[in-house]
């Protein structure tokens, strides 16, 4: 096992002590199979226990450890140390979110927006459980499956310049999940979701930079979801214009 030397420049901020964030440098001898998260954990355990950040699963599925690594939003548990070998690596909290403390950002905004787009199955009539499952062909499943893979890590929000400029924008992950339910053969909630999505700060603030999809560590392609959503939203708008609005 060989070692990889890294110089981590970590953005530190404690609102009780600091006026503004500042960088602190740590030298870390990393094992070559480590991820950046392992290096940060090493700092926390062995060098500076005051460092704060979120992490849990270490397998790129819980979405806790999104952070800016050399300026790009990434999951620290999925960014291999050897890709940064013998270099300075800048680690900052996810861009476009307020910094709560060190690498921890305030995520309330996303939680509120996610709720707004009604990311759950909406039915005009519920089918009783006793009648079994809704049939859904593998093709129907595949139509929306990709968009169910979002882990809410918020890397896409950190990558989105429109969210940076217009914080009211509902944003990639939440809208992609709205699209996920619209595209689910079991769902009948398109018209209801349309009310939120068609607002100016809904899907229309997206200018299709595609940076959300480039950043997505789970290859969800929110940019695709949002463009599809623009089309369905437009169709729905014209339908409502001529009085045929219901899905």
């Amino acid at each position, binding site marked *: 096992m060989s070692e990889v030397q890294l110089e981590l420049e970590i953005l530190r901020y404690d609102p009780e002590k600091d006026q503004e964030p500042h960088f602190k440098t740590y030298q870390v001898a990393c094992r070559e199979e480590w991820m950046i998260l392992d290096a940060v954990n090493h700092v926390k355990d062995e060098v500076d*226990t005051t460092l*704060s950040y979120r992490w*849990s699963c270490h397998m790129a*599925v819980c979405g806790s450890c999104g952070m800016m690594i050399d300026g790009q939003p990434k999951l620290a548990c999925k960014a*291999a140390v050897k890709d940064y070998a013998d270099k300075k690596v800048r680690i900052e909290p996810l861009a476009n979110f307020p910094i709560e403390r060190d690498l921890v950002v305030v995520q309330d905004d996303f939680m509120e927006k996610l709720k707004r787009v009604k990311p*759950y199955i909406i039915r005009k009539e519920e089918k009783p*459980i006793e009648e*079994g499952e809704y049939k859904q062909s593998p093709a129907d499943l595949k139509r*929306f499956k990709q968009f*169910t893979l979002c882990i809410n890590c918020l890397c896409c929000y950190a990558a989105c310049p429109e969210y940076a400029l217009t914080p009211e924008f509902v944003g990639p992950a939440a809208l992609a999940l709205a699209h996920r339910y619209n595209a689910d053969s079991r769902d009948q909630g398109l018209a209801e979701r349309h009310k939120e999505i068609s607002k100016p700060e809904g899907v229309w603030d997206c200018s299709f930079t595609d940076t959300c999809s480039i950043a997505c560590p789970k290859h969800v392609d929110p940019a695709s979801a949002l463009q599809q959503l623009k089309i369905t939203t437009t169709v729905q708008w014209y339908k409502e214009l001529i009085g045929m609005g219901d899905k």
Partner: protein
Amino acid sequence: MELIKTDIAIVGAGGAGLRTAIAVAESNPDLKVALISKVYPMRSHTCAAEGGAAGVIKPDDSLELHFNDTVGGGDWLTDQDVVEYFVNEAPKELLQLEHWGCPWSREPNGSVGVRPFGGMKIKRTWFAADKSGFHILHTLFQTSLKCPTIERFDEFFSIDLLMADGRCQGVVAMEMKSGRLFQFQAKAVVLCSGGAGRMFPFSTNGAIKTGDGTAMAYRAGVPTKDMEFVQYHPTGLLATGILLTEGCRGEGGVLRNKDGYRYLQDYGMGPETPLGEPVLKTMELGPRDRLSQAFWHEQQKGNTIPTPWGDSTHLDMTHLGEKHIDERLPLVRELSIIYAGVDPVKEPVPIRPVVHYMMGGIHTNIDAETPVSGLFAVGECACASLNGANRLGSNSLTELLVFGKRAAKNAVEFARKQNSEANESELKEQADKAQAKVRELVQKSGGTESIAGLRSEMAKSLEEGAGIYRTEETLQQTCNTIADLRKRYAGIELHDKSNVFNTDLFQALELGNMLELAQTVAEGALARKESRGSHQRLDYEARDDEQYLKHTLASYQGEEAPRIDYHDVVITKSQPGVRDYSGGAK
């Protein structure tokens, strides 16, 4: 301290907590629910479950078969009334999830698909590719957003339970972003706080799985049950211990030793099955305890592959083909490539057994009730004795649904009966005590012990003494070490004094919780002089139904080691028998 009055307080917002909360909210919109968790719901470790959830749905299956698999898989340490209730409710709950939008994998005709799993006689595991837990968690979380009566308290770290007049009446929790303490006053409390796999050094569990809820209940006088039963998953990815689902073997993956030999046939799970044609309850589809134990024996014989990260064997999926792997096991492929640099389509993946699941937990019954009234527990933090001495893969996801709903029903009934005024002065006093405890921990100076240091000593000791195979000597050593570590815990000093997101403090609290639970694991294992399921003693190799067909209860004794008692197993229709995974179980 801020006071929040609610009807039902739920600690933990993973699969169990969310299911409980939704069940309360849907049927009782007049009751307030406080859903308290140290992480946002979607960060909960339910998200890491891969393989699937068991429930009888296909015509060739039956509740009876699911019952028998579960009871036998648990080496008869299961409570059979619980198992019976569970297998009955399982299909309904999985269908409910389907109605809520869970993207279950499908058959060509549009019905839900099932896959084979270890220790199951029939294919009955519902799956969503190999991200079943993830999809269950997100489906539940997103569905919970439509319930206006669920008030979430995300990133609130629970410290202690509040007990008065002989019942549980709430919980004290810290708002992590401010360091402020909140006193949640509730008519009933449901703990859904997950397992404690992080006690061990090599674990599939996320960093958050530190047994906080279990330890809170334990300190509040609820015994833990069967804590010595720790499940090793046979296929953890080498180096990191990341889970590679049992689905790998369900889909036809095989285990090979350093000579390429399928070694399971030497450990009572043969005869060897043809490649690509897995036979249920045979070879690779044996139960997790047996497979992990077989690895240990191979290691003793020198048949494993030495690597810088420890000894390993191989999980070979190369014969499954790229298309099948991408469709059924996409995450496994991604994880193997990222974290081990091995593409399972082309090469066998290096694996070793890894701590995965605590069969033990807070002592609960078929109603998800603990012995303390007003306190309920669900999921991995609880031990309803569904899983006995060894949990069958894909029963745990279903468990948190079935018992989440059950706990909700009973917690609501209990809450509705609580008309008397809460004993507010007593509760306030306890809350202040919890606050003083935290304050002392933060302010104390002059300590020399480090959190990370104690944590790794604990983990090492548990693995050495209470690993796959145990002996009197190693267990005694571990008991001593843990007792000593508990003393040394008093000597830690926090360097972080901030009120804002003080992870130094949270790690200290987590370590305290884990040390208490580690002691119940080691002491329980030391006292159980037999081998059963995941608890294997080299000095007592046989199962001893005469003396130990009983649940271990460990009760908190302050700074001393827990008191160990025993509790009867509920046996209704299946008498203890032989666990047969030799292909004869057809």
